[in-house]
């Protein structure tokens, strides 16, 4: 790893993003618009005394899920573009290390994800009155980590896509099972054993559990930190696997 090259790569990716104003606007606005929908869906639902409202429960998880899905998609397409326009092959003929490139993407889009979840959580707490026992900043931290996880998975998956059509279809393959099995629709403890087993190996399950811990406890808990460590570990594993799929030589 070379810090000058890593910094230049991160800066280059952010600069590309900055030139694309419409994408920046959508990154900022879309999660907030979706949260608004969630708010009005649940605003009239009755609340069971002593339990968090349905909106509090759902919105908390959505704050983690939106950056995940959006950053996964943005990264898959960005990396596929590097491959199809020949810039990836060219980069690999320069002194740039594979890790410099992958970490550059992780940092750049991770920053974008943190910004996005900061804004979305501000709106959720200030406008829609989201109520969690724990700190808003823990929620932003976990959401930001989710964004970096999504970048890592996107970098890995783009290695298996030859075309844009294929890359886009990794979204339902990678993201939707994680959403279905993360414990939002059916608590993980109430699922059939084999579904739980699948849920146990999906990193988003741990991110959701960490968010639920923040929702239920005023202070950060050991379970939350363990979950955060698991998500971070999965992120690093995906980045290392992605580096292994980058070949300097090809046919």
């Amino acid at each position, binding site marked *: 790893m070379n810090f000058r090259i890593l910094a230049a790569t991160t800066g280059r990716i952010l600069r*590309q993003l900055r030139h694309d104003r419409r994408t920046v606007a959508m990154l900022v606005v879309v999660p907030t618009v979706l949260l608004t929908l969630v708010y009005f869906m649940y605003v009239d639902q009755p609340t069971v005394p002593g339990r968090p409202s349905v909106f509090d429960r759902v919105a908390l998880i959505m704050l983690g899920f939106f950056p995940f899905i959006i950053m996964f998609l943005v990264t898959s397409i960005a990396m596929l573009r590097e491959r199809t326009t020949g810039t990836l092959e*060219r980069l690999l003929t320069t002194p740039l290390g594979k890790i410099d490139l992958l970490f550059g993407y992780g940092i750049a889009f991770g920053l974008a994800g943190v910004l996005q979840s900061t804004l979305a959580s501000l709106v959720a707490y200030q406008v829609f009155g989201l109520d969690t026992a724990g700190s808003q900043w823990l929620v932003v931290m976990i959401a930001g980590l989710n964004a970096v996880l999504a970048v890592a998975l996107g970098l890995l998956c783009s290695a298996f896509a030859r075309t844009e059509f294929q890359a886009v279809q990794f979204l339902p393959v990678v993201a939707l099972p994680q959403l279905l099995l993360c414990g939002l629709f059916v608590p993980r403890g109430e699922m059939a054993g084999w579904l739980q087993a699948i849920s146990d190996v999906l990193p988003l399950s741990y991110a959701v559990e960490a968010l639920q811990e923040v929702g239920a406890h005023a202070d950060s808990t050991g379970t939350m930190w363990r979950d955060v460590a698991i998500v971070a570990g999965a992120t690093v594993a995906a980045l290392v696997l992605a580096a292994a799929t980058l070949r300097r030589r090809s046919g």
Partner: protein
Amino acid sequence: MDDAVSVRDLVVDRGRQRVLQGISCAVPRGTVTGLLGPSGSGKTTLMRAIVGVQTVGSGTVTVLGRPAGAAELRRRVGYLTQAPSVYADLTVRENARYFAVLHGRGRAEADRAVADVGLARAADQLVGTLSGGQRSRASLACALVGDPELVILDEPTVGQDPVLRADLWDRFHAMAAAGTTLLVSSHVMDEAARCDRLLLIRDGRLIADDTPDAVRATTGVDDLEEAFLRLIRASEQEADK
């Protein structure tokens, strides 16, 4: 060691197709060597093998005394791909500055590389808004910004207007005079006369490896296009025997 590149019995298959059928050739240091041949003859594959991004079947490629693709060569070799590979959503200057950092250079070198390919006035334009010829010059600036010892240029002059093309060739010779080695591919025969040495390949085989004057002398014609035709016919007759 006077050769910047030496290729020995190089065989490359792409899919089931044999693209290079045992090529041996050399690129002397401090020269502009032209790699000529029709489209699909294997020029790009040979260049990719020299840069070290092509999986090779057999044979050896030695670049600046090291096996092609060695990590150390990445800071000593510059490569221009045939399709311009620069970021369309960055300006010319931003592209050049990024590639400058990758090669351990600074902003001044980046701005000079942009000016050297005649894009000073378009430096702050997004590459995506440039014409095809300008875009390929932006890509060229990024290949030259690190001031490499060996420069591999895949069809750098395609789509350039004649004045610019002449400027670029002057610049290639100035670089060679300063000690840089250049391997430049083209499918336009009139560019052959501008090279110090010529490599002619056809169907993955080397047909000529000589100076333009020697090619003219061997074939007894002045026009290089005609000379190449004769060489190709001669090699075909030999193959038929």
